[in-house]
């Protein structure tokens, strides 16, 4: 126990040190606004005040966030009252707001919730200082993602990356593929080479879970249609019968329609996400490539003998028609429900590279903070994942199906999930798939 505490403190201390270095080097970037610079003097003395924080995190993730709170405590003297809401954060916060006692700060796992609470007038806009810190440390898209009707409310505490394609390095070596595919054509060619080398199902697809297929579609769509179209399709401002959707499905059909690349689609439809990963990284793998978010690393470590970073590596989702780096992902956003000095200062703190360095220090999280010193990451893998988010800059987009009404984008066996599963079973039916998607979207978005 004591050992653990010592270790934690040591790591935290080291991280602060690293962050301080990072902060120093980033000073020119944040130079336009004095408050963008992470210096301890920027925060007011808050001794005697208590800041209540609600978030979904428990266990290791909570411990990570605890480091940020401890650091803020030591800087300002404020005390924290952390409550884990579990998965039901929308219900818990909704009840608290109704009851007139919301927390000072909440960390929301879905952008939809920020919208909901902001529109209901429950949130406090960011203070000028916090707003300046966001401007200084994040790509403009992140401020936009935390804004409703032009007012900024949120600070993105972490960001996740769902544009990572994982591969088995042994199979790649065996097939003689020396460089990671950069483009969609390279990617398909690599799959064919793997098939020649005797890999039965070069690209493993977890088709039994519909959300893996929506992630495939979103990544292809963001690259083939561009970020603007992506935004319009997310909000159903353009229809699913749009030519851009057809083009994305055609691109996807180059993969889904090729049995040498994905094997028998009817079998792919029986494979759930964890199995799609173990099929690729088990001792006797039947596949060599699996696409999903950065959380694949966790499945690899927990259920296969492969080691992330040596046996299992990833490359960014390939570029389509010369598209620039783009990332589909998610994140957690901190918002203030109360207009207290503590809440204001804490949000400002969360936007600093210093806070980001603590957040990523355990490897559970990655950050979109562009002034974060990459050395704050504990390992190469999470560093690269985080770097890809920062590199994508304003081409970062939220998972489209998470933004859609659950009936369309989040229901097992229905809506987008089911339609794309049917598409996987029959990739020639592009027109029918588009019509079905549009019909389901129209019903859910009304």
């Amino acid at each position, binding site marked *: 126990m004591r050992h653990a505490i010592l270790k934690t403190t040591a790591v935290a201390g080291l991280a602060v040190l690293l962050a301080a270095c990072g902060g120093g080097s980033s000073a020119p970037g944040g130079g336009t606004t004095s408050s963008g610079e992470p210096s301890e003097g920027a925060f007011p003395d808050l001794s005697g005040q208590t800041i209540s924080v609600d978030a979904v995190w428990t266990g290791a993730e909570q411990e990570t966030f605890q480091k940020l709170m401890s650091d803020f405590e030591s800087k300002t003297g404020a005390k924290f009252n952390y409550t884990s809401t579990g998965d039901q954060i929308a219900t818990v916060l909704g009840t608290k707001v109704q009851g007139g006692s919301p927390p000072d700060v909440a960390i929301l796992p879905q952008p939809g919730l920020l919208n909901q609470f902001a529109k209901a007038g429950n949130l406090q806009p960011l203070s000028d200082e916090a707003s300046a810190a966001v401007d200084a440390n994040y790509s403009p898209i992140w401020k936009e993602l935390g804004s409703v009707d032009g007012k900024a409310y949120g600070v993105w505490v972490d960001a996740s990356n769902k544009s990572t394609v994982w591969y088995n390095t042994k199979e790649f*070596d*065996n*097939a*003689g*593929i020396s460089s990671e595919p950069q483009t969609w054509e390279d990617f398909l060619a690599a799959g064919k*080479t793997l*098939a*020649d*080398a*005797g*890999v*039965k199902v070069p690209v493993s697809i977890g*088709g*039994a*879970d*519909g959300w893996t297929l929506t992630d495939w579609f979103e990544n292809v769509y963001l690259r083939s249609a561009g970020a603007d179209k992506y935004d319009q399709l997310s909000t159903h401002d353009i229809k699913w019968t749009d030519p851009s959707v057809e083009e994305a499905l055609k691109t996807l059909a180059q993969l889904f329609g090729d049995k*040498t690349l994905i094997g028998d689609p*009817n*079998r792919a*439809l*029986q494979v*759930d996400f964890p199995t799609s990963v173990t099929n690729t990284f088990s001792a006797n793998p039947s596949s060599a490539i699996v696409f999903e978010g950065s959380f694949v690393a966790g499945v690899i470590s927990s259920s296969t003998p492969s080691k992330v970073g040596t046996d299992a590596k990833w490359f960014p989702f390939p570029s389509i028609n010369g598209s620039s780096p783009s990332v589909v992902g998610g994140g957690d956003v901190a918002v203030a429900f109360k207009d207290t000095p503590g809440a204001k200062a804490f949000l400002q703190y969360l936007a600093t590279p210093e806070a980001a360095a603590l957040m990523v220090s355990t490897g559970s999280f990655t950050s979109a903070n562009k002034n974060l010193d990459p050395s704050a990451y504990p390992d190469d893998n999470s560093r690269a994942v985080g770097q890809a988010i920062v590199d994508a800059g304003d081409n970062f987009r939220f998972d489209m199906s998470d933004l859609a009404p*659950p*009936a369309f984008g*989040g*229901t*097992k*066996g*229905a*809506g987008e*999930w*089911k339609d794309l*599963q049917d598409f*996987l*079973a029959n990739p020639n039916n592009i027109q029918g798939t588009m019509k079905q998607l549009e019909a389901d979207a129209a019903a859910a978005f009304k």
Partner: protein
Amino acid sequence: MAVDATGTATGGGAAAAVPPPGTGGRRRQVPWLGLLFLAPALILLGALVLYPIVFSIVRSLFDAGGETFVGLGNYGRMFTDHDTLIALRNNVIWVVVAPTIATALGLIFAVLTERIRWATAFKALIFMPMAVSFLATGVIFRLVYDQDPAKGVANAVVVSVHDLFNKSSEYPGAFPRDKKALPAHDGGYETAKPVAAGTPAMLPLVGFPPAQLPDSATQAKAAEPSSGLSGTVWLDFKPGGGGTSGVIDPGEKGMPGVVVQAVRDGSVVATATTADDGTFHFDSLSGGAYTLLLPQSNFAEPFNGVLWLGPTLVTPAIIASYIWIYAGFAMVLIAAGLASIPRDTLEAARVDGATEWQVFRRVTMPLLSPVLVVVFVTLVINVLKIFDLVYIMAPGSVQAEANVLALQMWLVSFGGGNDFGFGSAIGVFLFLLVIPAMAFNIRRFVGER
């Protein structure tokens, strides 16, 4: 008819019999005292049963938001919505198949266990699945039906039986390097151009892991030019890649044991098998205009078992797991019924010279039929509300094909649909379906009293 008459009579008698204990020898009591005693039960029944039923019926007449009155619109939608119709069809299959098989199996087990020594142990074994929750059963059977024969026991059995009769091929999944030079033909591959004797044919294959080549395989080499037809079949891929495709590079091994057929005018004239270095010779064939055929038997994919949880078999597969649970339930009830049949009736039949089959058919079955009907009807009620097994066992990609009404009700109201009006309509419809079975069972119970 007789049952009906006694049923009503007893029912009426019971109702009439209630007041006397209260009145006793005294004068008639004020009615509110009786009501007071009834109140707790009435309030509970009203709050927990009556109110939800009435509320559901009212709710089913409104739209998703609950503000607009839509009349019977939700009910109309039930019979036009594609997913709900599939759920309805599946429910019919469930109600017809599951109780019938479970009751029949229960009867067989009950009759057979009556005569064996370890009857109790056997019954306990069959009954045991009843102790397992639907959720756990679903998880277990998902594993049983796993498509990978190395994980799913159902496919392991199917594959072992299949492989007893059909040997798998030597090079499953291998395919030609150049599909234009060696196009597919009846599952195998045949050269596009005729081959002449004297110039060795090159037949490069890929798509097979080099590590799985037979140990005897050696470095491939071109066949010696001779007067006869000859050539080489080799794996045109070496570990680590590199090399030129279509050319035998150092490190590329021959594929021994591949059957090669020489074809002339559409009929096979000779058959050869490749050597360890991949070479084959038809010494007796000379001249030209042969095509070379690598028949399917070389490349047939191993049998991978049945897609139990695929779109076509998913409902029967889930019903089978339901029967695994409920056959024991049926057996225990039927066995109890059997035990209560008077022995002397059976003895009398035997003394009169009836065979065992006749005793079963003419004596046991008629005496047992009330129990069988109760078991059957109870199972019908149980099957109508089946939810968990389907929800857990059907993979997302076939959930729509495996859907049943109770699941559809949940899906449209809570599972993302958020349409409580439509969900209530399905709930009310299910309620209507259960009513006849319930009424039947209640009548029986009353009649038996």
